[in-house]
């Protein structure tokens, strides 16, 4: 009989892991908290650095899950994890031969950076809001007009000890560059200013895209973090930053301020980890067994990780890692059961 693996989370990591396990003759079961598959990538407009529509990646994954008749439980929250199964909020126990934690991340709540006035000022939006606007085909100010001057702020809820987010969320820099280019394509005469602390272009094609944004699209990059945003009488946004490359404070008014929100560890990680006997990294993400050969293995036999449960990751990295997770799970099950 096929061995059964419970995958906690039906986002990109969970789906990819499930498909890879299935192809290895293992029976995956996805437990998803939401009412459908897809996770955070659902509703995303286009992906960096290639501007591939997110749906082109996510839809086929979900279609294949259905085609492969992989069992999915929706609206179910996992409250406890062990190597031989998970406990659901309903009190039901779901036995398994191994468990994969693919619980991903939580978007940083921009309200917490009160100084930017998100939720108070109509024309202060997050990078996620912007993706949704682009998906709807309309990026407009609250009064329905087109923005002529836009500021994009990097590191909102990343590298910020004031909100207990010490880590770099990794994907925001390239997202900021991607969104700046998309905005320039939509509004060629608009001025787009990216305010950054460091530009971290770690992936293939990222640095090239950054350069293109600078030179071809004339996106202005200002090294300095916006310290506060305030609404003006005509609903524009006044921002203050230091232009650290000239060593002087800088003040400007923009039509729209986009906050590149970071990736936070899930609040539930702590409780889940304690039921499983796992530990968390200082930033609240699950701690991988080691940083090189055991990146998808946990400290407990039979419990594995996939995707952003262990650290902020791009979709590409998540998908690649999920295949590794499936391979590690397969190896574990073979060693444990078949060789007896």
């Amino acid at each position, binding site marked *: 009989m096929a061995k059964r693996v419970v995958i906690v989370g039906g986002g990109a990591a969970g789906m990819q892991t499930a498909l890879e396990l299935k192809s290895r003759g293992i029976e995956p079961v996805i437990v998803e908290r939401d009412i459908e598959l897809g996770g955070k990538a659902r509703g995303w407009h286009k992906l960096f650095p290639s501007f591939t529509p997110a749906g082109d990646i996510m839809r086929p994954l979900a279609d294949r899950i259905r085609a492969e008749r992989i069992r999915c439980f929706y609206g179910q929250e996992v409250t406890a994890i062990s190597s031989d199964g998970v406990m659901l909020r309903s009190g039901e126990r779901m036995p398994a031969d191994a468990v994969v934690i693919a619980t991903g991340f939580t978007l940083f709540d921009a309200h917490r950076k009160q100084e930017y006035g998100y939720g108070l000022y109509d024309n202060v939006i997050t990078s996620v809001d912007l993706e949704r606007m682009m998906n709807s085909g309309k990026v407009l100010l609250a009064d329905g007009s087109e923005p002529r001057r836009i500021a994009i702020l990097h590191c909102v809820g990343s590298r910020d000890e004031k909100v207990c987010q010490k880590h770099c969320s990794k994907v925001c820099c390239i997202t900021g560059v991607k969104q700046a280019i998309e905005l320039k394509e939509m509004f060629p005469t608009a001025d787009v200013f990216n305010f950054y602390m460091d530009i971290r272009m770690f992936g293939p094609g990222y640095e090239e895209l950054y350069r293109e944004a600078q*030179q071809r699209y004339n*996106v202005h990059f200002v090294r300095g973090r916006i310290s506060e945003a305030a609404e003006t009488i005509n609903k524009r946004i006044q921002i203050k930053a230091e232009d650290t*490359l*000239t060593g002087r404070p*800088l*003040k*400007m008014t923009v039509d729209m301020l986009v906050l590149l929100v970071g990736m936070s560890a899930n609040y539930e990680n702590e409780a889940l980890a304690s039921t499983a006997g796992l530990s968390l990294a200082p930033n609240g993400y699950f701690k991988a067994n080691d940083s090189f050969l055991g990146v998808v293995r946990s400290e407990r036999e039979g419990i594995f990780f996939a995707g952003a449960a262990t650290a902020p990751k791009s979709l590409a990295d998540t998908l690649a890692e999920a295949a590794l997770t499936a391979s590690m799970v397969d190896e574990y099950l073979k060693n444990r059961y078949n060789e007896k």
Partner: protein
Amino acid sequence: MRNLNFGYGISRPRAIDMDNNDLRKSNAIIHEMPELQACIGCGSCTASCTAGGITDFNFRKLHTAVRRGEYRGAYEELNKCMLCGKCRLVCPRGINTRAMVMLIKRKLGDY
């Protein structure tokens, strides 16, 4: 009318004012040589600068300020450049910094 001497005046704001700065010259410079926007602020130009070694000339800072519409004194400052071209050799983004010095001077001649 009284002539009051308070012994002090209202200090001028130091902030770069991107709302009131005239960005037309800056836009013209960027339009003519868009590669200037590709600067990543590494400071290699200033580090290797012949003039910067003996005066406070700082090309990185100067062209950044010019891009923000801060033109005052830029022309005079650029007179310190010896046009040796070392900055162009070291620029990791391949910006023709030497030509940039000439371009900014040409555009800001009347400032």
